[in-house]
């Protein structure tokens, strides 16, 4: 009865190829240190190669065979031996209409996985490039640093692809542990070590709570396999004759699971680690964590909520009454909405008070996590679509901002806003590019940040309206209120983004104020090029966001998590519950014919294959 599990492991391995490249890279890097001549050389180039190869392979997979063929034909390479090799690499086409499971249902392989994988590898490549231009880490530590970076990315890809609660936990831990070490990588700096320790303690606590939630869920429903779990969970919320069932264990379990993700997302009130860690860690690491870690956590949240919410409840043709997932959605939307609204508002308000640029950006990332969660609150494909676009936009603008901070730190030996007064007179390129990134974060058109924010707001309004039409006034109102909150937040965020620009551009230069001799800092060509290219990308993507939005839309179009027959089973089982009265909702809700899974099958799915 398991939906479309692959017959053999070979397919899974092929689909897993980019990650295997990464694993190979890590192992090689660790071994290379044993070889004398590589012991002290900088491994940035090597890890960059690994990252690019992984990115390349995942791009090939994303294109699939037909797409690839047309590309190759366009450059007239299709018939050559190179072309044939490439084509054979792409033998595992992306699932056109449905997803397939990797490794016996542990991981899911669909367009969403591919999208996130490409996104994360782009981040990886960009971060490695950044570290190579800023000089952190030095040659001696480079092997450790890049191993951790690659390992963390691997964990994040797994987070985005998890299809099983056990895998969710493993992936989160696999992403977290390297992050802890990376945060404390600036050895000898007290702040850095403090940041790492804080991160570990908070992270450990959150992981424990999450594991508790996972075990409660798995124990209650006898499975950790998400598609099955979602059916049972949704059925548990279907109102019976005696009203809506109230099960504290269930609510605690889902809440605990959410807390684990909220910690990774730095959603308020689980954000306390974020400003400290970002302040203590190197700007490069902070940039990586703020972009990649957030992308993975949001992907996981999207995965879980869309599993639980079934698929888009706002389909074209189904009458409202037959939507089996609506009852759980009624709980989920307000919960997420409260999280999102508080996160965005708090992040924006707190950022205004910061004097350290990295801390300010840390609160800004918290606020942006809030915006992206707003998109997910709709629990529709529209919302996930908007979130995916936002992630891409956010990658360029936020990483760009952190890159500028890193370069400025190299120039001025400071990350304090007060030392950046009148900086435009000394490092014009850095300040102008930083302004572009900050304005994009603020959402000023025609920069990509606006296109992203527009889509989030559009999703909120559109789906709010459609929920109204379904008769779900509560959900609809929630989403419209959330839209207003988002609008107000945009204005709030203008205060601190403009403050940074005011300090750097409008204020007199710091030397004049402190009576020192004015100097013009040299702007390294690498730094100018890096931030310049990102800034141009932010502008170009803000004008021509059509193709990107087509891609993200196509990604969620294929975001069919629960196959049709499962849905019909759910309807049937819900009918059973109603017919059978109030006898133990959880048990009765399990689809018929699934009794064999119920006992202990859940966690053993991998072995069964």
């Amino acid at each position, binding site marked *: 009865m398991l939906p479309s599990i692959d017959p053999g492991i070979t397919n899974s391995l092929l689909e897993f190829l980019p990650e295997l490249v990464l694993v190979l890279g890590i192992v090689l890097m660790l071994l290379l240190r044993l070889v004398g001549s590589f012991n002290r050389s900088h491994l940035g180039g090597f890890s960059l190669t690994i990252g690019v190869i992984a990115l390349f392979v995942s791009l090939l997979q994303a294109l699939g065979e037909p797409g690839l063929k047309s590309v190759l034909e366009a450059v007239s390479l299709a018939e050559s031996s190179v072309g044939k090799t490439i084509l054979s690499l792409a033998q595992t086409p992306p699932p056109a*209409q449905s997803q397939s499971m990797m490794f016996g249902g542990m991981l899911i392989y669909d367009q969403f996985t591919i999208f996130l994988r490409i996104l994360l590898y782009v981040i990886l490549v960009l971060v490695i490039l950044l570290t190579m231009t800023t000089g952190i880490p030095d040659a001696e530590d480079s092997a450790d640093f890049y191993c951790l970076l690659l390992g963390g990315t691997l964990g994040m890809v797994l987070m985005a692809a998890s299809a099983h609660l056990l895998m969710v936990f493993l992936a989160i831990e696999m992403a977290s542990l390297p992050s802890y070490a990376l945060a404390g990588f600036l050895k000898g700096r007290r702040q850095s070590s403090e940041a790492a320790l804080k991160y570990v303690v908070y992270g450990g606590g959150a992981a424990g709570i999450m594991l508790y939630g996972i075990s409660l869920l798995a124990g209650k429903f006898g499975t950790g396999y998400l598609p099955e779990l979602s059916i049972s969970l949704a059925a548990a919320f279907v109102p019976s004759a005696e009203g809506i069932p109230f099960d504290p264990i269930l609510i605690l379990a889902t809440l605990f699971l959410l807390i684990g993700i909220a910690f990774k997302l730095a959603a308020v009130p689980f954000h306390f680690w974020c400003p400290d860690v970002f302040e203590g860690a190197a700007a490069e690491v902070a940039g990586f964590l703020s972009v990649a870690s957030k992308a993975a956590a949001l992907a996981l949240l999207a995965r879980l909520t869309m599993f639980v919410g079934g698929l888009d409840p706002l*389909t*074209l*043709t189904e009458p409202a009454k037959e939507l089996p997932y609506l009852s759980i959605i009624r709980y989920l939307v307000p919960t997420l909405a409260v999280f999102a609204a508080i996160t965005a508002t708090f992040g924006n308000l707190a950022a205004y008070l910061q004097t350290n640029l990295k801390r300010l950006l840390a609160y800004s990332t918290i606020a942006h996590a809030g915006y992206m969660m707003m998109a997910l609150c709709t629990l529709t494909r529209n919302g996930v679509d908007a979130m995916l676009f936002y992630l891409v936009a956010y990658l360029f603008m936020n990483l760009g901002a952190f890159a500028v901070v890193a370069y400025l730190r190299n120039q001025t030996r400071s990350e304090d806003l007060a030392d950046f007064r009148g900086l435009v*007179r000394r490092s014009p390129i850095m300040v102008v590019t930083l302004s572009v990134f900050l*304005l994009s974060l603020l959402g*000023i*058109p*025609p920069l990509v940040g*606006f296109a992203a924010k*527009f889509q989030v*707001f*559009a999703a909120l*309004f*559109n789906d709010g*309206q459609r929920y109204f*039409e379904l008769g779900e006034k509560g959900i609809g109102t929630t989403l419209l209120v959330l*839209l*207003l909150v988002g*609008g*107000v937040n*945009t*204005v709030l965020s*203008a*205060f601190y983004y*403009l403050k940074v620009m*005011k300090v750097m*551009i*409008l204020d*007199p230069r710091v030397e004049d104020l402190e009576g020192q001799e004015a100097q013009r800092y040299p702007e390294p060509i690498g730094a100018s090029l890096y931030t310049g290219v990102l800034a141009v990308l932010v502008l170009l993507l803000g004008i021509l*966001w*059509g193709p990107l*939005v*087509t891609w993200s*839309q196509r990604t969620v*179009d294929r975001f069919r998590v629960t196959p049709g027959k499962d849905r019909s089973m759910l309807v049937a089982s819900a009918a059973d519950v109603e017919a059978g009265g109030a006898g133990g909702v959880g048990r009765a809700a399990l689809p018929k014919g699934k009794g064999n899974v119920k006992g202990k099958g859940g966690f053993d799915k991998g072995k069964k294959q």
Partner: protein
Amino acid sequence: METDLIWMTLLVFVPSVFALGLLLFPRKWEDAMCWWSLLGTAVTLGISIAIFINYKSGVVDRQGPNNTRADRVAMSLDARTAAMDEAAQEGSSAQFKQNDWVARYPWIARFNIDYFLGIDGISLPLVLLTTLLSFLAMLASFHIKRYDKGDRFVRGYCMLFLLLETGMLGTFVALDFFLFYIFWEVMLLPMYFLIGIWGGPRREYAAIKFFLYTLLGSVFILIALLAFYFSNMRDFVSDKVVAARANRLVETEGDRLPGQQPQEKLAAAKEVVRVNTFDLIVLARAGRAALQYLGNDRNVDAVTVAPAVEEAKAKVAALKEANAAADDISRAEKELAALKAGLNSRLESEWFFTPAFQLTMFLFLLIGFAIKVPVFPFHTWLPDAHVEAPTPISMILAGVLLKLGGYGIIRIAYPICPWAAEYLAAWVAAFGVFNIVYGAFAAMAQTDFKKLVAYSSVSHMGYVILGIAVWNSAANSDAWSWGMNGAMYQMIGHGITSAGMFFLVGVIYDRAHHRNLDNFRGLFEPMPLYGGVSAIIFFAAMGLPGMCGFIGEVMVVFSAWKFAPGGHQWIGITFAILAALTVVLTAAYILWTLQRVFMGTNPAYKNYPDITVWELCCAIPLVILAVVLGVFPPLVLNWMEPSVTHLVDTLVSFRM
């Protein structure tokens, strides 16, 4: 390829291209940068004049001199867009009209956003005003080095200035709401930096205040934009658009539609497809439908703007006319009834056609635009911004940016939410009158020369609001169209005089280095020519007959007299009297100012040089326009009036 698309694109983006060109200049060539930017604004001015000539000959004059209602309809954006879309659907490039001055190019398909530009009598005067004032302001910017505290940011100044021009022009020619919004926001940032870097002592405060006020307004506009977009417009676009959208739905959501065969799916898609659009023309059509529907007790028969239904009605009428077989007639009538039923069900269920939606969105738009106008109580950013901004930026701010608010109300708020506009007409007009009176009193109390001019702007823009707001019944539609035309004329007149006044204040500030009215005196003696130029501009601003300020004000006051919301004639008469009496206040503060600045003798200023030739170059065009537009208003009204009156026509004639 459509030539008008190219021309309008050039108009908008030539300044940006010149801004990019500035990057190639070496750092030291500051004068060359200024000349280059001046060339950029001059080229843009040239393009706008070329467009004007072609529009006048190609669109306006073709309709003949009679200016009948049919002529006005034929030259309206509505008709021209319909003709263009028709031609585009048929795909024959020969039928593409090269000079209909509307052009569309798809931009982002996912959200149906078009790069949709167009020009009519409402936008064109303001485009010309913008290009002229930008040119003159750039001419006045050659001494900008003086303002930037030794930083030598000439390149930055010129780039921001040209970017600002692109934003302003784009806002005026955009006919896609999303595009409009993009350009609207593009203006925000250059203005922030232009005030913040080159401004006076409190420049940072003024700049951030301007930014936050406008951003808040933008958020309101953004919410209205989303709300309009997600309203179903399928009844107000042509069949072909509906069919195209249905096809797209089958492509993307095919497996969720009922039916097996492609045809079945297509039919099902046509049933459920929603047409969402940012097209301001379509949205305005839906707005009229809402007006007709809500204004006639939710009666579907009153709606006369849905193309499909109108076509069916015409078909039935034609069949009856031709005495066709009873079968055919009854079949056609059945089709009509079905279409009407569909329309009715959507009118009943769509949010767009509810009073609450119309009122909320009208208020959102009104607040968003009123901040820019600025209308009391959202005006407090204006005096600060004006006082701190450098002279050329003050010229642009008063001359063009304030007009964008008025333009937004005329182009977007009124056509899309006319029902709410009528419902709230008395209140909007009251705000306009309050603006007039309040601005005049506030101006009288100022001692800072620039603040005085700033508050006089508040007062004068009040006439614009009043002129727009004096909604009238179909019988009295002439009165309202006077008001609307007066509002437009007032915008142009005020653009000329306020930019002139700010420039003249700048001239004197360059010499005296202060703006305190009580410390001037006797300037006429050393600077007779300057005094003469000032007198003309200030009298024009005062609304002296024979000057451009007079025409707009008098048209607005006349139309306000006829304004009778809910049949209460006294309201309109009160408003008219108040607005007319304020002219006395205006005369008072302007004459008093002239007296304080120019009369008497003042030994301290004895050796001031008179206005230079360079400065005269900036001022003389404005002086000439102030007089010519006052003496011979048809020069503008001839080609502006049909579009404005058409807008009024479409809005007043809604009751069955």
